[in-house]
């Protein structure tokens, strides 16, 4: 158990260190999604009545792009750095590698969201602290990562991974994206019961993605 935790921490530590050194993931993603949210906020000139209709779409467009671009880089970086095969020679279960990459991915995306959400709230005149909105975003990020890590590993050896990954990722992640979007919409319309139901559905998708992702990872990294 202790050695599994050491290995898990090792993968996360290595990914964080690589990101600090290469700066290829978090910073470009942050700039991209901030630009997207700012552009949308000016395009829609959101009046108070329009905010619950427009804001969820803006937020989830940004989060969907964030997830897709993030996953393209997650395993590409591993390969470009040259250590992927070294990692595969290690005597750790593939499911542990999946968990490590998943947690590192969640940390990167949540790091971007921590900056994105307050700016989004300010631009659309929303309160900074909407705990359910943060929870919905976090749960959707977890679901995104659970699917994204699997497809990122699958696409890493293909030449057209930037094209292939969204094609594979979107159809599978769509239920989680819709559930997150509906949760946000219900929160902004002040419908707590509806938001709670969609939040539960997001959580159910997360569990499903995590179980299936963990089970499939061994086969995906097999070659």
């Amino acid at each position, binding site marked *: 158990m202790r050695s599994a935790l050491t290995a898990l921490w090792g993968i996360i530590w290595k990914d964080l260190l690589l990101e600090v050194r*290469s700066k290829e993931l978090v910073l470009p993603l942050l700039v991209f999604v901030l630009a997207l949210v700012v552009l949308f906020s000016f395009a829609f000139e959101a009046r108070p009545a329009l905010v619950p209709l427009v804001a969820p779409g803006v937020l989830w467009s940004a989060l969907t792009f964030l997830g897709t671009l993030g996953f393209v880089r997650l395993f590409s970086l591993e390969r470009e750095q040259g250590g992927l095969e070294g990692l595969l020679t290690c005597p750790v279960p593939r499911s542990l590698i999946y968990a490590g990459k998943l947690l590192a991915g969640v940390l990167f995306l949540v790091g971007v969201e921590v900056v994105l959400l307050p700016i989004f709230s300010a631009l659309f005149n929303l309160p900074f602290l909407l705990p359910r909105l943060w929870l919905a975003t976090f749960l959707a990020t977890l679901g995104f990562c659970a699917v994204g890590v699997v497809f990122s590993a699958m696409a890493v050896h293909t030449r057209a991974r930037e094209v292939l990954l969204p094609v594979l990722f979107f159809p599978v992640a769509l239920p989680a994206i819709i559930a997150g979007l509906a949760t946000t919409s219900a929160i902004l319309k002040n419908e707590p019961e509806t938001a709670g139901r969609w939040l539960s559905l997001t959580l159910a998708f997360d569990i499903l993605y995590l179980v299936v992702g963990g089970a499939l990872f061994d086969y995906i990294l097999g070659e």
Partner: protein
Amino acid sequence: MVFGPNGSGKTTLVRVLGCLTRPTSGWASVAGFPVHTHPLQARRAVGVLTHAPLLYADLTVWENLLFFARMFGVPQPGQRIEALTECLGLTERLHQRVRTLSHGLQKRAGLARALLHSPQVLLLDEPEAGLDAPALSTLETLIREHCAQGGAVLLTTHQVAWGLSLAHQAIALWEGRVALREARPQEYAPAFQDAYRRLLAGAGG
């Protein structure tokens, strides 16, 4: 010792035994562990060095070795890393990023990674390529010490004379099959070299 022309299957053999490639047919076992049914035990028993050092380019040598020590559950990793890097002449380069090292130094760092967990079996795919004379001498010493301590080394190379000087057994591969086999290569080195030359000439003709 494994010899063979390009494309004969030397690297594939190393990759299959190192659990990096799944065999499409047949079976393979290393240190008594079948690679398809006991991959974790097989991986723990082998140290692999391929053409690439299998290290992260933007991490330093120390960070890379510390990461792999954690993954292999090496006890007291700091001491082990210091001992290995001193032996391989990497002490001065420990805190340098792998990306900035020369090919030969990267190879030495890759060798340190392969040896980190004191594996029973070392799988070395053309390890002499790119090494200077002192590094080659260190590699020979390491191989001899590893064998003297009861470990096994499977080494692929194109340098027949050099390979035979280290070998306890030698084979030559041809199109994925064993074409030549010698149980006492140091004793019958000239005969093996002649047979190997004929094999390659036959391939060319």
